[in-house]
């Protein structure tokens, strides 16, 4: 089994496979066991010393590849913890350098060499099951924090939210009026054309009387029954009993192609006759 170990500044031994940091001047009682996350972060930094590692790569290689959820906040907290730890062991507070808007880099000022016993070993990716054995070290343990947000630009999110919420409101504003349908009642035929009334008359006798009124007005206004013609009539109560105050409306609608109607309306009103 391969062992990946590094000696930092000739006085700290870092064993990736064990997840340990050890001051070489001391005995094994001073070994610090790293949490899996800290261990993977340190490995990434040490193995690529002098190279800027982006936050995204940290999140991917330290969390995502191990089925964990990380965030930039979590990363910052762990970096801070790691800084303190390395600062204490290496007596250098600038071991991990922050490169603004790019990521983090392990300082070139720190001398790193592979441990002699490991020189021939091939570098390999860490195994989750291995590092999970070290998960309970109090002084370097950080809580698993909230899920990393692969966030879209804020302005984009706001725009989408505004668009979504404005849809129902826009719909409300532009919703067209629904004009209710008028119920009509068939009174009979005039020369074969159907005659409809806008009101329901109380008896067949009254309906017959209205039919006669319609026929009289139709003849007087030369509204012949032609193909696809339909008549509509409205006669108020006065038109049934007397001529004064009467109001009669008769419409003839001819249905043309494409369901388009052409209507002619005739009205008569009479007073004091």
């Amino acid at each position, binding site marked *: 089994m391969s062992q990946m170990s590094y000696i930092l500044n000739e006085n700290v031994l870092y064993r990736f496979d064990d997840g340990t940091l050890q001051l070489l001047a001391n005995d094994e009682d001073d070994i610090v066991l790293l949490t899996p996350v800290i261990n993977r972060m340190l490995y990434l930094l040490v193995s690529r010393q002098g190279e800027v590692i982006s936050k995204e790569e940290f999140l991917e290689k330290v969390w995502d590849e191990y089925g964990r959820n990380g965030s930039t906040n979590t990363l910052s907290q762990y970096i801070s913890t790691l800084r303190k730890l390395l600062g204490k062991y290496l007596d250098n507070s600038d071991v991990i350098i922050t490169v603004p808007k790019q990521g983090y880099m392990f300082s070139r000022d720190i001398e790193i060499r592979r441990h002699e016993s490991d020189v021939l070993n091939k570098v390999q990716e860490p195994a989750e099951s291995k590092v999970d054995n070290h998960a309970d070290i109090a002084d370097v343990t950080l809580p698993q924090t909230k*899920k990393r947000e692969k966030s879209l630009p804020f302005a984009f999110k706001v725009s989408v*939210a505004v668009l*979504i*919420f404005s849809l*129902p*409101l826009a*719909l*409300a*504003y*532009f*919703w*067209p*009026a*629904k*004009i*209710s*349908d*008028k119920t*009509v009642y068939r009174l009979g035929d005039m020369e074969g054309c159907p005659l409809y009334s*806008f009101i329901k008359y109380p008896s067949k006798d009254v309906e017959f009387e209205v039919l006669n009124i319609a026929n009289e007005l139709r003849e007087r*206004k030369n509204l012949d029954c032609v193909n696809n013609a339909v008549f*509509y009539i*409205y006669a*108020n109560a006065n038109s049934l009993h007397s001529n004064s105050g009467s*109001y009669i*409306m008769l*419409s003839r*609608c001819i249905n043309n192609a494409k*369901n*388009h*109607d*052409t*209507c*002619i*309306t*005739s*009205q*008569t*009103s*009479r*007073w*004091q*006759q």
Partner: protein
Amino acid sequence: MKKMISFWAFLFALVTIVAVIAILVKAKPLDIKCDATLDYELSNQNDVFSYSVTHNITLSRDGSGYDHIRGAVYNDGKSYALARTVYFSYKSDAAGDAHNFSVDEQRLSGIDNVPDSLISQYLTYLLPKEKRLFTLNMLNGNKILISTYQGPYFICNIS
């Protein structure tokens, strides 16, 4: 994350409900173009007033509209040319059937020679500042029945 999604879903549902309520209760705009041919005859003892006109009516969503009226007016053995455009504004009630119309302006074409006295006596609905309540109903899906307080007035063919 689930809480966040629930929150936004709740908010969206709330906005949708408000919008639906707004659709149901707000004064609804109309968007209609129609034309009608109308023959009218009023007999008052020996006096007969009649006209034969066409209406080209446009109602816009912003609560405005206009009516191009062309035709002839007959009274006392004389005939007159009626050719004018009436500009109006309207407000619809919540139910959407009744509409309050108010004439804002009328523009007469050069041939219009109907005496003002006849307009004032028989065609008051053309006069500026006149208000009328009209009811609109669909008829057979392709026509609009326009009614006034006295009953059905005329049928307008949707253009």
